[in-house]
């Protein structure tokens, strides 16, 4: 499958944007500038990037606590990082007016329905959004990003059952980074291949290297095409790993040094950069330029956030009801 040059460069920039965003947030969180807690997705960038490169702005995704990358990828590179950063800083100018924070960063204007702090329910909400598409006869597609920890919730089963029974345009994309908080998925399931779960719903289950953005893109393209044609849901596993702990401050001592080193080596960004240079889509110089541009964009976004006021306290009382 040939992907046009512009799209490849766009995908590369998206991955760099997610990485720089996450690394800056890690730094500012450690410095005590960000309230609450944050769960970072550095290392997993290829998953939302490869999937969302197949989506339109009117398609819908659901996200998780580890969701910054989903929002950045779904929005596209023209969407400013500033309101996102401002949300994490709890400012009035945040995407969600300072009511969501890192864990619930979400924007229906760009098709991010929810970002869930409790796992499983997103699958049933996504099935509902896919039902809307079906009832209205649109060809919209819904992608529910989940982590491996969600696989054992009842709601995963209920959402997927509904989607398969009604042939809804839903893709469940599981970013399998192996660790559900501090618990290894293979210690708590009798599974070697998590895509075996798809058999229970009689739908395709595909496993892909979640650190290879082009592989993710290809698998997602097939699933999106199936969904658009009304052929029903697909379950995809992206095998990936996280560079940080479950939350910032987690020392992740439950992971061996060997595993962490391996994860650092599997970094999807240098890998894609090398590939694009080999494909002559990108030069080293251009890649450095993208890096620098994104860094500047992030610096500006942080400046915007820091200069933004906190919400008025009365904001507490708004938006309870329509």
């Amino acid at each position, binding site marked *: 499958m040939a992907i046009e040059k512009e799209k490849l460069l766009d995908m590369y920039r998206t991955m760099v944007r997610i990485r720089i965003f996450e690394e800056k947030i890690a730094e500012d969180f450690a410095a005590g500038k960000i309230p609450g807690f944050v769960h970072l997705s550095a290392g997993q960038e290829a998953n939302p990037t490869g999937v969302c490169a197949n989506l339109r702005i009117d398609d*819908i995704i659901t996200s998780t606590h580890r969701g910054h990358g989903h929002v950045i990828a779904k929005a596209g590179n023209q969407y400013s990082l500033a309101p996102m950063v401002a949300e994490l800083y709890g400012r009035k100018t*945040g*995407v*969600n*007016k*300072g*009511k*969501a924070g890192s864990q*619930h960063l*979400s*924007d*229906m*204007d760009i098709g991010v*329905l*929810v970002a869930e*702090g*409790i796992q*499983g*329910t997103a*699958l*049933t*909400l*996504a*099935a*509902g*959004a*896919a*039902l*809307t*598409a079906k*009832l*209205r006869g649109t060809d919209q597609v819904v992608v529910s990003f989940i982590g491996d920890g969600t696989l054992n919730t*009842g*709601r995963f089963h*209920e*959402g997927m*059952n*509904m989607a398969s*029974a009604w042939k809804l345009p839903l893709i469940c994309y599981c970013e399998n980074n192996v660790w559900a908080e501090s618990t290894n998925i293979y210690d708590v399931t009798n599974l070697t291949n998590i895509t075996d779960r798809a058999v229970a719903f009689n739908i395709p289950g595909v496993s892909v290297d979640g650190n290879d953005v082009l592989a993710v893109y290809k698998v997602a393209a097939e699933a999106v095409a199936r969904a658009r044609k009304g052929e029903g849901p697909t379950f995809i596993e992206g095998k990936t790993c996280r560079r940080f702990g479950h939350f910032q401050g987690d020392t992740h001592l439950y992971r061996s040094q060997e595993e962490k080193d391996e994860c650092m080596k599997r970094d999807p960004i240098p890998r894609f950069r090398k590939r694009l240079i080999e494909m002559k889509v990108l030069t080293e110089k251009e890649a450095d330029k993208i890096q620098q541009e994104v860094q500047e964009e992030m610096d500006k976004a942080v400046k915007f956030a820091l200069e933004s006021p906190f919400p008025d306290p009365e904001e507490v009382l*708004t*938006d*309870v*009801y*329509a």
Partner: protein
Amino acid sequence: MKEITYQKAINEAIDEEMKRDPSIFIIGEDIGKHWGGSLGELAGLFDKYGAERVRETPISETAILGGAIGAAATGMRPIAYLYFDDFLGVCGDELINQLQMKYMYGGKTKLPLTITAYIGAGLSAAHQHSKCLFGWLMNISGLKIVAPATAYDAKGLLKSAIREDNPVIFLEHKVLLLSRSTSQIPNEEYTIPLGKADIKRGGSEVTVVAIALMVHRALAAADKLQEKGISIEVIDPRTLVPLDKQAIIDSVKKTGRLVIMDEEPKTGSAAGEIAAIVAEEAFDFLDAPIKRVCAPDTPIPFSPVLEKFWMPDEEDLIKAINEIM
């Protein structure tokens, strides 16, 4: 005018609204071709609107409510048929963490969603099919709560609930759903706004706020007390959220006495909330302590004798009123 049962009122409200607005659909268990709702209140709707809009599901409460929320947030106007409100515990995350989507995401998302569920004891259905859960539900922010006592109210309020751009739970008392008694309703269309109490009986000496089935028991008690020369005003709040505080306070200002009759365990009940509001906002008008006539703080038993003891009745209310006269 025409005579209509509580069950027929619900059927007509949904039918009229589905006819009016194609974005409305019902989703739930046993609502379609065989039963039309387990008490038959949705009879005929499947034949009229088909399987797409009267959408039968497996036993899967989280997918019913979660699916309805997802559909509502993306532009549909679903009615999630949750069967018995005791089943709401199965979908607790949806209730306490998802219905608040509008607030959580800074106002962008709208959730035009109605949840319907049966409530109440009186059928020996035991603990898992008999609760009201008013107080429990009132603690959930962002959720409006309707609990009609008559067919007239049921129809007008359900139509308003469906038209709301907010999540509303519409609670149908099983004893009323199975009752053959009727209300007069207009032949032409009408709606009743949420948040407006109804004075079911005017009186001057004691205000009784009663909810759902308890309205009928309060009216029966008021008849008996009338014979003894005690004048009771019976207020049916009809919606617990929003609550028509003003109607209750105005009545208390007139009578100086308040008794709340509520079919749920006393601790954490809607009755407690109403009592607290009056204590905070109309204390100076009270001539006697506020009384709550509720169920004991126990689960709900099966045996008719035990269940009868558990449910608040006319005698309990009369006893409470006598204590403050």
